[in-house]
């Protein structure tokens, strides 16, 4: 994984970006407010497969974008 495609700037070296981690997505089955907050703050799907995640283009446009990556092989999905 050497380049990341920024929606604003196009393909750039991975070093220009900061990893923002998986997009917090509490499962629908959690209905209690506390449980949803707890999940949002602390819990992760940590998928061995496709993960929806956030990236920040620190050395570029200074904007966040959302991308999908297959964590099993560490490759972006376009």
């Amino acid at each position: 994984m050497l380049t990341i495609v920024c929606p604003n700037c196009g393909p750039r070296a991975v070093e220009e970006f900061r990893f923002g981690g998986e997009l917090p997505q509490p499962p629908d089955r959690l209905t209690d407010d506390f449980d949803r907050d707890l999940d949002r703050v602390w819990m992760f799907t940590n998928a061995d497969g496709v993960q929806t995640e956030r990236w920040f283009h620190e050395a570029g446009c200074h904007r966040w974008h959302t991308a999908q990556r297959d964590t099993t092989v560490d490759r972006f999905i376009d």
Partner: protein
Amino acid sequence: MNEFVETLLELTWHEPKSSYDVVIIGGGGHGLATAYYLATRHGITNVAVIEADYIGSGNSGRNTTIIRANYGIPESIRFYNHSVDLYRNLEAETGCRIMHANKGLIWMAHTESGMRAERSRVQLNNACGVETVLVDPIEIKRLCPQVDLTGGGRYPVLGASFHVPGSTARHDRVVWAYAQGAMHRGVHVLQGTSVTGLLRDGDRVVGVKTSRGDISAGIVMSAVGGDVSTIAAHAGLRLPVRTHPLQAFVTNGYAQGLGPIVSSTDLLCYVSQTARGQMLIGHEFERESSYSRQSSFQFLQSCSLKMAYLLPFVRNLKILRQWTGRCDISADFSPIMGFTGVEGLVITTGWGTWGFKGIPAGGEQMAELIATGRTPDLIAPFALSRFAADHPMADQGSTGTR
């Protein structure tokens, strides 16, 4: 062939039974140590350890083997100090030579804020009965003459904390010592068998689905390292854990001796010398979570550069091998041990990049928890429920260099 290998050849391997009192998923150090202590401390031997690959194929056979207790919160210092003690007696107890060597550990700081952190570490360690002392640059030079105190002109060494009990031990021998001790007492170790699901009876976990058929169990423990979220998902459980790769490499032999383990809290890299004289070098984990074990040239470049600032002699060495493990990094950088809220399923995880040193104490305490059904005091602060209670055991500063 040495004595150690000869005793291993006497081990008996078994076909899986349809049921065990305890099923442990994962034949790494934590799974095998738990089985060992169940058998030796509690007489519980109707136990299977199920390993997808070969035992020690996960992080327990890939780490840089540093054992220490110089943590930054009292709960961790106490826990790891107990593990340091168990390691000290492990050869005598198991009769296996694990090549345990007490070398001392220099944690260098290059900034004023780094020095402040080391000063408070020293005070807290001493308050908890752990021998860590503050050393100035002259003392560092005495402990390890190879250190360049100017840090290559870029990272001047202001001082360090010196952790006297810092040690190393041969990682795969630790794994095999526990496996052998458990198997000689009747524990089944099933290699090449992967757990593909959990057997449920209502909400309760009552066994495991494996590539060699279903196995029922009185209680199931997950000790699968970086794969923990996959196992937990089978029980509908979400965890405060992310899987990150961690790389390391080893050089050819360095003709002289490097006394202590040397690490830099600011540069986030560290080195120890193996019994063969090689330099074993490691770094911080990769920032992107991933299950890939791909090693990178970029890592070799940046890590060797930093190491050459601190120990210029490494410039003349050659890199022999590099490898990668998948680490279960917990959200607060402390281990997670104990009950999960799902009946019949207990867990040991969050060992991240720092769990080799915790193998003896982690195994001993989890065995007690399984045998008695109660959480031992030493690991009570590390229960999964701490996150819901808003009481995380945050200690990232102490994990930076394993």
